[in-house]
């Protein structure tokens, strides 16, 4: 494993029946690095990010997260999931629990933390995502942007070393995108290791250390934002950028 790498993918392959979703994907992410993954739909970017905490199991190659290789062994999966937080496109908050209960559930049951202790920490995170006054409401009573900020706080309560974002703003009304991106930028400034699948190119340009462009299950190109936007190497990347930056 290379120096400082917290996530390493080596020739990862994944099939859904006969559909080849990931083809020999190799990738190294260093501690504190912010990586934005983009690409057309069906390019395998969500599949790849979901393999990192084994919501999807890869079939060939190796995935090593913080020194633990993901295998069929449940222990390796448990260990990795404790270190990796995830934010979903559709928030996936637990609707039958209050906002505060959403935040404290996993720390209590998985980490065995005392309720009073974690509630204090949870309130601290709710303040950071700027919705402490919603702590006792149910998710259904919140706007989409608020729900996504709760989801980020919920992931942070597990004190992860790595955060995965799977299109975190795609299900939001346009006026709510900024409030979520602001929270993500703050998190990036604090030095969190982040892997983010997104089409928010403004966010990518200002926050990302590197941008990965995927198509047809492979990484076509990766590089710094400056290089990616100003001087893309492949024709496929230029075509994609032309499509999303046109308007």
């Amino acid at each position, binding site marked *: 494993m290379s120096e400082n790498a917290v996530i390493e993918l080596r020739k990862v392959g994944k099939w859904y029946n006969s559909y080849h979703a990931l083809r020999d994907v190799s990738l190294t992410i260093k501690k504190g690095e912010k990586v934005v993954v983009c690409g057309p739909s069906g390019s395998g970017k969500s599949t790849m990010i979901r393999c990192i*905490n084994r*919501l999807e199991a890869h079939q060939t190659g190796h995935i090593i997260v913080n020194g633990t290789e993901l295998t069929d062994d449940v222990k390796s999966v*448990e260990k990795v*999931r*404790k270190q*990796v*937080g*995830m934010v*979903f496109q*559709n928030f*996936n*908050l*637990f*609707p*039958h*629990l209050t906002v505060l209960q959403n935040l404290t*559930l*996993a720390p209590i*049951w*998985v980490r065995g933390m005392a309720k009073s202790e974690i509630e204090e920490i949870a309130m601290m995170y709710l303040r950071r995502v700027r919705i402490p006054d919603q702590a006792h409401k*149910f998710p*259904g*009573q919140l706007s989409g942007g608020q729900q996504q900020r709760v989801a980020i706080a*919920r*992931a942070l309560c*597990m004190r992860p070393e790595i955060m995965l974002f799977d299109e975190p703003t795609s299900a939001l009304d346009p006026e709510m995108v900024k409030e979520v991106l602001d929270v993500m930028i703050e998190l990036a400034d604090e030095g969190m290791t982040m892997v983010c699948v997104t089409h928010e190119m403004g966010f990518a340009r200002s926050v990302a250390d590197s941008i990965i462009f995927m198509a047809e299950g492979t990484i076509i190109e990766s590089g710094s934002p400056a290089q990616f936007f100003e001087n893309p190497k492949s024709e496929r990347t230029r075509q994609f950028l032309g499509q999303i930056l046109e308007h």
Partner: protein
Amino acid sequence: MSKDSIPQSTAALAASFEEEPSQASVATLPGGMTALKPFGWAKNNLFNTRANTVLTLVCFAILWFAVPPVVNWVLLNAVWLGTSDECRAAAGACWSIIAVKHRLIFFGTYPYEEQWRPFLACALFVAMLGVSGVRAFWRPWLVGAWALVLVAMGVLMWGGVLGLTHVANDKWGGLPITLMLSVFSITLAFPLSILLALGRQSSLPAIRSLCVGFIELMRGVPLVSVLFMASVMFPLFLPEGVTIDKLLRALAGLTLFTAAYLAEAVRGGLQAIPKGQSEAADALGLGYWQKTMLIILPQALRMVIPPIVNQFISCFKDTSLVTIVGLYDLLTAATVATTDPEWRPFFAEVYVFAGLMFWIFCFSMSRYSQWLERMANRYNRR
């Protein structure tokens, strides 16, 4: 929507269509609620179109022909405490058979002088069921209270201790049998059904096919044959000298049968939970049982309260089928009560009474489930 707002919106609708006449018939009650005076209400709701007028008249005609005979039979011409001869002379119902036979209907063949014992046991049982339904009592001590009540019921029913004479359970009958069979089989079937429903969705083929096989077997067979199997066939497979009580065998049959149906209701709930819920729980590091108990089941079960209670009610009524294996439930005891030659003509009254008893319990369950549903789904309100 509350009940009050229905007439209100009807009134508003009516008012918006034909302003003048309905305005006159709307009376404003204190608190801003509106109600229509009877005449205006009838005009707006029962006679507002030609089709509605016809329907209204047909309904009135049916009521006109049906209600008076029923009221006459049930109340006006009924004999309440008379002898069987008075009953034969009367045109109405003979409720005195209930007064005469109620001990037999409620307690079957339980020794007559000892029938205060099943009465007390049933009273305790029903009281405990009532207490268990109240949210404020959902505390750990309730489990202890149940343990005590069950022991007390056992002592009362069986006796043999504390100076009570022993009554073997083939002498039990009537309401205690119906209540205990239904409540115990529901209580046992419910967790079993959850396991079956989870097993049916398992990724392990052996567990999945076992659960599917069991559910499909139980659903494909009439309850009567399940009871018959449990009662007659099952002992054949037991080693020599080992016997399981007939009541227990019927309970097992009823439980397994109910569990199979309940499992399908529960599965409906499990399938309605979005995949994202499970993924979020996985991503947070929750294990399978934590995820199932904390995230999936609480949501799934709330969704399927109506079909689950439907099955509970069905199970309660199914207990009347245990008569096939020679058990003496409420309905069987009622049937026996009609065999007395002196009172034989008045079997209808006995069945009406037994039906009423069943209805009281089933209706209570139904009402309770409505409250439960409202309470459990509070989080859906905005």
